[in-house]
């Protein structure tokens, strides 16, 4: 029986090759998008599951607020990990990680290179986390000072085929480390990424007993069955017992007096399995994913697949007249309705299976494109695992049933007598449903198009908004700390070149991490301090960055007292509320003993975006740094960048020949802040493209069908003197109406959705009427193009031929 169905289906599909290919292409595209998203979602959801007892692992996070500045990061004080293990029987083990900012030099003999994946880890690293050691003993590998565990890749890079165990390497400048273990490379779906684990033992900061500074990432393993909730509840009192005395010593007020009202400090346990997708911290030791995007992508996949299924339904029912005779005959020779439903379903399932096979093939082609677009690293070969193949087969079955059920029920309902009598009007499907489906398809496409355009609008808004500094034509030298006391000599030598306009130095360029320091303005109570982001700069930084002054002056070599000067931004001034700030004093704490030093306000800079536009411009303080700055900013005239760079490199090599110059461009660096938004933009556009192609295909098929059906009418009208344009208008009018309706329905939905997205930015563009208009125009143009091409063909054809048709 199935053979009979299959044979009929295959022959029918072959005979109507045009429709078959439209259906097949549509389904294949839909499934390709779905599979691609399936790969993405499974990769995102698989993060950190490889750890043994992953559901018992937690990361400590801190959320706190001081005078309106919110601190929210997965960081904790150095003594916390040990104290937790000692004080709570529920804590089986704890381990700390410490990451350095930027890259460090790795050297072994003549081999040397910069590495940014070096992290410090406690000896308990392997007790908590599951990173299998290929060589070495997990109990002792990181126990001694000056030992390292290398990943396989790094071991191979440094030692080739010889055994690295017990050998030594040199990290940073001169410290010698002994290799005590080789660890497998961390899997791609681990939020903790590293290339070298350096022993925390002997690291001075790690031995600190100071509970008020948070510099470590702490991971815990809890007893099976103990809940994080019960545990978290005990933390505040416990923390106070250690931190209370230290806070009192530093601030001169008790813990309770300081942490009241708006001010608070809370530690939480973040489940390990939430770390990748549910982290939104200002500081993090990973590039987190976003569960919202996972949901968004699932929704998009669902809709695109639905669009493809709708194509299938629409074409199958539109063409039902063609199949009606067969249905009638089969019923007359003894088929029951269920058998016919079975036949049509197996036909659509067959189609879905073919589409699935093509889609899997296509995913292998598109995955590299998808990866480069999203910056992710999904692996298409995951689809070929036996379990997943079964899922795919089930998927094809589901899609086949989803797409085929309506046509199957519809077609099998034909009464044989009406077919035999040739009353074909009775066998037409309701055009109302078909029209509704077309409206739905185009509505989705228009909404996705609007989404694409709005995301792009916002990105260009960000790029063009006045930042308060000039990001173009600035070269950053990020390892300028290497210059040590030669820093000034180097800066001076750069100034010789005419194409270099200014050279300044800083501890934090816009877009990089900014800390928070307490300042007590003159005349304020001690506990009424304000938090500002402190940035150390040199004399020329303000000029080199193009930062504008609102009041007063920049740091100047003409004022020797400027080492005790401070420059605030307008936001900080607004918070303090002074009318005339110049010459006023602010006090800072220095060290852990709460000693106060005063600084004189000499200038106010206009607010500039030193953080992402998702965040409001906060209070900022600029102070003159005495030590050499880790980052130099070199403003050029932008005319011959290659030449300028060569000059900089040459000067660099003259001072530190053994260190490579590490440079980048400020505008590129700053744009990185929006890389996830840009990714969203690109992914959105490609989805919109897919959706509109699928919807266009469907409309193309319907147009083909309607034109075919009306060939005789067209011939008659032409014979009566209708012009080609009149006929084209007649044929296109119905579809145009549907697309217009789709636009009307999609616009409010898209408006609402995109407004929500834009609200995530403090600095956002308004929704542009033009974007909506453009999306509508694109959808309409595509619809008209697909339908009109066929109408013109039909309208141009010879009326005699048309009238002889049937």
């Amino acid at each position, binding site marked *: 029986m199935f053979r009979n169905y299959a044979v009929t289906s295959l022959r029918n599909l072959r005979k109507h090759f045009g429709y078959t290919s439209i259906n097949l292409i549509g389904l294949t595209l839909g499934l390709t998008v779905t599979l691609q998203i399936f790969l993405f979602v499974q990769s995102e959801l698989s993060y950190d599951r490889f750890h043994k007892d992953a559901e018992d692992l937690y990361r400590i996070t801190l959320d706190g607020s001081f005078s309106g500045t919110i601190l929210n990061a997965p960081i904790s004080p150095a003594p916390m990990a040990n104290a937790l293990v000692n004080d709570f029987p529920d804590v089986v083990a704890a381990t700390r990680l410490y990451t350095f900012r930027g890259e460090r030099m790795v050297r072994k003999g003549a081999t040397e290179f910069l590495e940014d994946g070096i992290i410090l880890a406690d000896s308990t690293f392997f007790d908590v986390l599951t990173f299998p050691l290929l060589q070495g003993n997990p109990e002792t590998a990181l126990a001694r000072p000056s030992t390292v565990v290398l990943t396989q890749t790094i071991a191979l890079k440094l030692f080739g085929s010889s055994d690295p165990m017990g050998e030594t390497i040199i990290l940073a400048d001169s410290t010698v480390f002994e290799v005590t273990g080789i660890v497998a490379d961390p899997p791609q779906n681990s939020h903790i990424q590293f290339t070298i684990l350096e022993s925390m033992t002997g690291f001075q900061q790690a031995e600190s007993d100071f509970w008020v500074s948070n510099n470590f990432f702490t991971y815990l393993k809890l007893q099976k069955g103990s809940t994080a909730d019960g545990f978290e509840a005990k933390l505040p009192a416990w923390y106070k017992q250690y931190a209370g005395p230290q806070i009192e010593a530093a601030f001169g007020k008790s813990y309770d007096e300081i942490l009241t009202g708006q001010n608070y400090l809370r530690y939480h346990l973040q489940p390990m399995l939430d770390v990748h997708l549910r982290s939104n911290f200002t500081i993090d030791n990973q590039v987190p994913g976003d569960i919202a995007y996972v949901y968004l992508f699932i929704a998009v996949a669902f809709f695109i697949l639905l669009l493809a299924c709708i194509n299938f339904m629409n074409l199958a029912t539109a063409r039902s007249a063609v199949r009606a005779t067969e249905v009638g005959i089969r019923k007359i020779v003894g088929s029951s309705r269920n058998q016919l439903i079975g036949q049509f379903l197996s036909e659509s399932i067959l189609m879905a299976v073919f589409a699935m096979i093509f889609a899997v093939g296509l995913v292998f082609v598109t995955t590299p494109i998808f990866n480069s677009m999203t910056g992710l690293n999904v692996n298409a070969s995951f689809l070929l695992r036996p379990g997943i193949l079964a899922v795919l087969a089930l998927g094809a079955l589901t899609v086949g049933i989803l797409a085929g059920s309506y046509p199957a029920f519809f077609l099998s309902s034909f009464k044989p007598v009406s077919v*035999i009598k040739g009353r074909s009007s009775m066998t037409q499907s309701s055009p109302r449903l078909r029209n509704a489906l077309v409206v739905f398809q185009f509505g989705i496409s228009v909404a996705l198009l609007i989404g694409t355009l709005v995301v792009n609008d916002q990105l260009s808004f960000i790029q063009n908004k006045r930042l308060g500094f000039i990001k173009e034509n600035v070269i950053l030298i990020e390892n300028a700390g290497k210059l040590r006391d030669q820093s000034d000599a180097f800066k001076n030598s750069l100034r010789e070149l005419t194409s270099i306009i200014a050279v300044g130095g800083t501890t934090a360029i816009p877009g990089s991490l900014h800390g928070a320091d307490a300042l007590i303005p003159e005349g304020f109570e001690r506990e009424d301090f304000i938090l500002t982001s402190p940035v150390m700069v040199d004399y020329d930084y303000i000029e080199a960055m193009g930062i504008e002054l609102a009041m007063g002056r920049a740091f100047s070599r003409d004022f020797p007292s400027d080492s005790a000067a401070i420059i605030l931004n307008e936001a900080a001034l607004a918070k303090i509320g002074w009318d005339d700030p110049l010459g006023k004093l602010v006090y800072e704490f220095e060290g852990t003993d709460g000693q106060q030093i005063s600084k004189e306000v000499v200038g106010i800079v206009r607010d500039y975006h030193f953080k992402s536009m998702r965040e409001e411009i906060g209070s900022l303080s600029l102070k003159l740094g005495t030590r050499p700055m880790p980052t130099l900013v070199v403003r050029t005239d932008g005319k011959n960048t290659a030449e300028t760079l060569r000059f900089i490199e040459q000067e660099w090599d003259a001072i530190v020949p053994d260190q490579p110059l590490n440079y980048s461009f400020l505008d590129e660096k700053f744009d990185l802040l929006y890389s996830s938004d840009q990714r969203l933009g690109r992914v959105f556009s490609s989805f919109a493209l897919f959706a509109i192609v699928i919807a266009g295909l469907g409309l193309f098929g319907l147009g083909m069908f309607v034109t075919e059906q009306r060939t005789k009418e067209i011939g008659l009208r032409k014979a009566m003197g209708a012009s080609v344009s009149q006929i084209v208008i007649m044929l296109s009018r119905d579809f145009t109406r549907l697309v217009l309706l789709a636009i009307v329905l999609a616009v409010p939905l898209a408006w609402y959705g995109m407004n929500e997205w834009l609200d995530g930015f403090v600095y956002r563009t308004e929704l542009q009427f033009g974007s909506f208009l453009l999306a509508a125009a694109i959808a309409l143009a595509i619809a008209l193009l697909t339908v009109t091409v066929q109408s013109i063909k039909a309208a141009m054809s010879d009326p005699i031929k048309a009238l002889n048709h049937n």
Partner: protein
Amino acid sequence: MIKLEKITKSYLHGFNRTFVLRNINLEISEGEFVSVMGPSGSGKSTLLHILGMLDEPSSGTYCFFDKPVQKISNRKRTDLHREYIGFVFQAYHLIDDLTVYENLETPLLYKKIKGSERKSMVAEMLDRFNMVAKRDLFPSQLSGGQQQLVGVARALIMQPKLILADEPTGNLHTSQGEVVMDWFRRLNKELGVTIIQVTHSEHWASYGDRIIELEDGRVSADNSATETVSTELSHTESS
């Protein structure tokens, strides 16, 4: 076998009721060869569709083997089709995408007959109709007469007790039509299959033992036609 009592078929057109069949009373016994004649629109085809249970009468009762058809469920009706009734149409109505062999096989598949038995039944039918060489051709590759023979063979393969033929020769040349009608006669005489055919033509009608004439939805004449049959018989055998 068939008993119609006061069968009426009408359609509502706006406020007017159009009658296609009016008050038909008819009895047909097993083994009869009946021709239904009448001008266009006299209700011949509708009568045949009602007899074949493809259409339902507006009123009246139809008993098939003493069972009232109106009370039979859809599923039982499908079973009755499979078991007892074969159809032959003017437009042949073969499935275009299936070969001759597959067209003949289709009813057997629906009857869930096993593979080996199915093969021998199709082979026998192909053999009987001299179409073994054409078994792998598609309907569009056959002449009209050949297509209609496949249609007859398909009706016959279910070994029905009743064959309903709606102008079976309407699209055929005379010589092709005679081959088809010859088959009907042989099936009727040799296997005792009841045959009811609808036709315009007196010539083809005369193959039947009994001619029912319809006019404006009423039975206007109902004659046994033994004499004409015997003369026509010699005519066909000589051709």
